[in-house]
């Protein structure tokens, strides 16, 4: 197996006089198993590797990638990135980052045992998951997917500015979608569990959650339109926090595309609201020692006491804003250039568990799933409107199931109406943490 950092350094060393070169080299091995009706429906083992090269000359940046680790591929990508640099608009703020001396956190993101877990064990987990979902309730009619997946990934980055960093991580996941039925009606529900090695996975919980979420929606009707308090389940909260984090990108702020532009120091949330992006927290799946430009990751508080403290920056956005990088460069892999992004956003948890939040809310709507979050949230205007399904809350207890409705507000308004943050912190793959979250004064549109 070629050493990734060696490849990256070899490319960076080819920088000509007057130019800077950065090479990002990634390699990922993924296994996916899907069980269906007691058998394996598909087993996919895939390894992807490639090189992305940035060249900067005279304030102009060019990029090229190649899906290969070969010398030939590296040469092609470097030549192409050089050629591409000639076509960008010159910008004094464009450039590669300099190492800034911040010490990277020591994180345990790599579990060797996942590498030696036999494929048969992974298959067995998927089969066991499917069997448990089917056995959980007689009303389970179908399990449309019972999946095991894992990813073993390594990345290295080196530049002619002296950056040299590498990282690696393991992640595994089980998830099932159950369909429950009675008569002609069908409802579905999802359950999951994630970890860094197979021993972390709680298959029983994933199966139980999928079955519960599907069966409890049986008989769901479309509710009357009203203003309600919504209680978001952790997975839904994580989606919402991920979107809020996008609006706190320093780049979007500079470009006039964020509802939070020019609002630092203002009260943007309820008193006591605390939002932080902390990739140094090893519990977060987005935890990382280095960002996508090779700077050490650090803890970045964004909202404290309800006040907006600041934004996230990568090298370019920081230079343009006259500040320093918060080491918040992310990239989708070797095929893309770095951009600003959060890795591990969380709210400061409260004292109540999920049941406690329901009891405290009294009357409202528990949202177990949303759809259309990519089309229904405008990160520029803040308008928020998504399809939802869940269970009404009456007297602090779950009552009748509801579906085919939307919940709507705006990001600005929702932060000002946070009623309770649960204590049930749950880290999920993705850039944000989940927990039960209650928000007042949301428009429910139904019949």
């Amino acid at each position, binding site marked *: 197996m070629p050493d990734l950092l060696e490849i990256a350094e070899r490319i960076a060393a080819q920088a000509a006089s007057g130019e800077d070169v950065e090479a990002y080299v990634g390699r990922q091995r993924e296994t996916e198993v899907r069980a269906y009706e007691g058998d394996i429906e598909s087993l996919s*083992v895939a390894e992807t590797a490639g090189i992305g090269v940035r060249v900067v000359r005279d304030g102009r940046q060019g*990029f090229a990638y*190649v*899906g290969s680790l070969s010398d030939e591929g590296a040469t092609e990508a470097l030549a192409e990135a050089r050629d591409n640099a000639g076509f960008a608009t010159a910008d004094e703020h464009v450039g590669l980052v300099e190492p800034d001396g911040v010490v990277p956190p020591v994180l345990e993101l790599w579990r060797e045992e996942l590498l030696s877990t036999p494929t048969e064990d992974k298959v067995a987990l998927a089969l066991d998951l499917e069997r448990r979902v089917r056995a959980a309730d007689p009303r389970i009619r179908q399990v449309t997917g019972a999946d095991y997946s894992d990813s073993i990934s390594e990345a290295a980055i080196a530049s002619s500015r002296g950056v040299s960093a590498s990282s690696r991580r393991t992640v595994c996941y089980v998830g099932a979608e159950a369909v429950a039925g009675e008569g002609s009606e069908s409802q579905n529900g999802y359950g999951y569990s994630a970890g860094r090695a197979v021993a972390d996975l709680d298959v029983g919980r994933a199966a139980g959650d999928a079955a519960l979420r599907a069966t409890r929606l049986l008989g769901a009707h479309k509710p009357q339109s009203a203003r309600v308090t919504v209680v978001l389940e952790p997975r839904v909260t994580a989606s919402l926090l991920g979107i809020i984090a996008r609006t706190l990108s320093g780049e979007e702020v500079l470009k006039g595309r964020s509802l939070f532009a020019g609002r630092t120091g203002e009260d943007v949330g309820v008193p006591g609201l605390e939002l932080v992006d902390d990739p140094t927290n090893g519990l977060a799946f987005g935890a990382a020692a280095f960002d996508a430009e090779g700077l050490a990751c650090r803890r970045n508080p964004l909202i404290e006491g309800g006040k907006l403290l600041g934004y996230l920056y990568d090298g370019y956005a920081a230079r343009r804003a006259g500040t320093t990088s918060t080491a918040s460069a992310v990239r989708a892999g070797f095929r893309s250039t770095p951009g600003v992004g959060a890795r591990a956003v969380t709210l400061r948890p409260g004292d109540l568990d999920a049941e406690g939040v329901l009891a405290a809310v009294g009357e409202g709507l528990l949202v177990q799933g949303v759809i259309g979050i990519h089309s229904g949230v405008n990160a520029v205007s803040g308008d928020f409107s998504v399809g939802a399904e869940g269970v009404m809350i009456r007297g602090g207890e779950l009552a009748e199931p509801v579906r085919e409705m939307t919940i709507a507000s705006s990001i600005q308004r929702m932060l000002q109406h946070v009623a309770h943050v649960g204590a049930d912190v749950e880290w999920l793959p993705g850039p944000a943490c989940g927990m039960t979250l209650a928000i007042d004064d949301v428009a429910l549109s139904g019949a």
Partner: protein
Amino acid sequence: MSITEAPLVDPAVIERALVAGLRRGGDLAEVFVEDRRSTSVSLDDRRVEELSSGHDRGAGVRVVVGETTGFAHTADLSEAGLVAAAEAASAVARGGGGGVREVALEGRPFGRAERVEVLPETVPKRSKVELLERADAAARSSGSAVVQVSAHYADSRRRFVVANSDGLFAGDDQVRTQMGVHAVASGDAGLQTGYENLARTVGFELFERNSVEAVAAAAAHRALRKLDARPAPSGVVPVVIKRGSGGILVHEACGHGLEADVTTKDASVYAGRVGEQVASPLVTLVDDGTLGDFWGTFAVDDEGNATQRNVLIENGVLGDYMWDVLRARKQGRRSSGNGRRQSYHHLPMVRMTNTYVLAGQDDPDEILAQTPHGVYVARLGGGSVNTTTGDFVFGMTEAYLIEDGKITAPIRDANLIGNGPDVLRSIDAVGSDFDVLPGTCGKDGQLVPVGCGMPTMRVNGVTVGGTAGA
């Protein structure tokens, strides 16, 4: 980058890889070899931020054993690389007694980029950059309230060959070109956004036939018109959807539920309902990968079958589902040319191409005039569906109130939510106009280009997810 026209892999090497895939047993082995090159340019905040090029080349191998599929892929296109991938994929053939099997490939029609007049790879990079500079200027000159503009351009050329142990040997050469503009306008009530794009399965001649300035102006005007937008209503109202833009409704509300991978698992509200009236008699729904040069058009699908025109619903009656090789084999029928994959890294599955409702008899202006009150949707953003229940949402990115049969005030962005079967039954007017718009469809994490089309239609009652009392 130089473009090589040589075959991606020697057919004899593919034959040997297929044999290796079936050595431990199995019903079908398939090798998919792909070479994809792409160029993209992004302009943002008055600057050409970067020009980017990419090259991916590799092969995916699958082996089907009974109900089980094994899959592996490799970037190593040597015989050793392909055979290793085939052996990895065959790991699912546990204890199989297959033994060596002969595979003889037979040529099938190959798709060619012959419709393409100007291959984007022959166009100077400078010309691609200029398109975006023109778009930026046009968007900014649309109104002084336009405060930010970003624009992107992308082209790709995807060549592939696919072969399987039934002897199929086919391929295609797919060229796509697109550009889009995103504008932000600022007013007293905050920021508003507008987006417009142009995307076709053609080369750079796209810009001889279409004006980038018109695309930019459309994006800018969409943002500007929303500056006075009122909160969207909340509740059930009649909705008139403009031709073209509502194709996503059909795609989400209905198309996904007609894909055979979900219908054969009984995870669709349309499962087992062929021959039944599932929509208003005004609705005839077609999926057609051969239509013009739309975004979902191509000659050969990613399993080597020619695309075709498939009538899914005729006058409201469910006629058929969409099929890929795997689901079709189980039913003893032919694929409908709907087997697609994002790249060689992915397993193919049932996907739509261009999906549309055929034009009807009603004058679009009359449809509006006969709607006393409701919402007029001029443009939809993305959407999604829960195929099990049929509940779907889609986002309105340009919409207006209808009052006394006339389009009046613009309304802020909001989602619509409905139930696919209910909405299809409650379509009560279908216009005589028609348009197809480009989209990107995501399913199980794989993205593919699609076209969504429709005439102007009225749905008598959809839930609008706004914040104002309806």
